[in-house]
């Protein structure tokens, strides 16, 4: 089995942005994404997820470096000022 080096972009942000961001990343060319629930604390304060719109989501996108940069740049430009947002990439080996 051959593996392939790719990047995994992880986005931690407010749950209220889910639909908007899914549209953005699809438009930017992501072939897929994975979303899960999270809660946490950062510079925008504690987000307990107890409150309807008060939780975080984690969006993960597996792609090449170009796609991940494109998405990260767009999100930083449009949402970082007003919303809780943390993004990082890590190197992974695709196994299928």
């Amino acid at each position, binding site marked *: 089995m051959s593996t392939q080096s790719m990047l995994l972009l992880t986005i931690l942000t407010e749950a209220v942005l889910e639909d908007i961001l899914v549209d953005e990343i699809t438009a930017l060319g992501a072939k897929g994404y994975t979303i899960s629930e999270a809660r946490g604390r950062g510079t925008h304060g504690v987000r307990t997820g107890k*409150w309807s719109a008060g939780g975080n989501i984690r969006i993960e996108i597996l792609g090449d470096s170009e796609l991940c940069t494109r998405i990260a740049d767009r999100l930083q430009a449009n949402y970082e000022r007003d919303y809780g947002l943390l993004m990082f990439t890590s190197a992974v080996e695709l196994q299928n």
Partner: protein
Amino acid sequence: MNFEPVVLFFVLGVIAGLLRSDLKIPSSIYEALSIFILLAIGLKGGVELAKHNVGDLVLDAMVVIFVGALIPLVAFPVLRFIGRMSRADSASIAAHYGSVSVVTFSVGITLLGHEMLDFEGYLIVFLVFLEIPALVLGVIMARHGQGEVRWGKLLHEVFFGKSIYLLAGGLLIGFIAGSEGIKPLDKLFFDLFKGVLALFLLEMGLVASMRIAALREYGAFLAGFAVLMPIFSATLGTLTGWMLGLSVGGTFLLATLYASASYIAAPAAMRIAVPEANPALSIGASLGMTFPFNIFVGIPLYLWMAKFIHATGG
């Protein structure tokens, strides 16, 4: 005494939060309780509406909505110029206070049951319509000369956001089915209503306890606003209800509706439409201050006001 046991559940929640009890209401249960309450209120309103000639209510509705729209228009300059808050924050908070709280309204209905006072059931219909101008005005005030508004997104959020959607949907179903058709659902939606409200208030208390702290950071002005604004709005509501010839119960409910501030529909809509507004401020004020103020102090006060104006004014 105007005492209603359900509000004790709110206190129980607040204390649990302040004492850092490990009591938590899972978010999916919170969602389910709020869907229940919104649908039940909508159904109740629809059943009542079916008893009336809808045409007769159009004029009343217009007056109620028009006067209701004054609330954010008054709140905005107060916040902006007296409170020196940013344009976005002022607009967002104004929208929260112009829009309404279904739970506060429900506590009001519950008190009327306790006092054995009747009310005009169609008032529930107004509840649905009051949200819309408040949210739209909020965005206009935030955006005035500040670049374009994503109206499509906003109106979608307002009309199809779950609060208004469920209220309006319940209203329609209740209206179509009528009180006979809805009877098999009574056991769930009406008989259990007060118990579910108690559980919801427990959760509200847990959340509010965290918001009170947030509010503290922003000083006395916002706290004062959160108490005085509802009294002003309730006065407006009392006068409007009385002039429209509503009963004591109806006058009181309209006052309560005006006095209540949103913490479900408005926060979601404002977070999308006015993202630069700080949600901690608006939710802190509406949920951390105004909501408890209304259920403990406001509601008995507004009932007194309604009785007073009917006793002396009429």
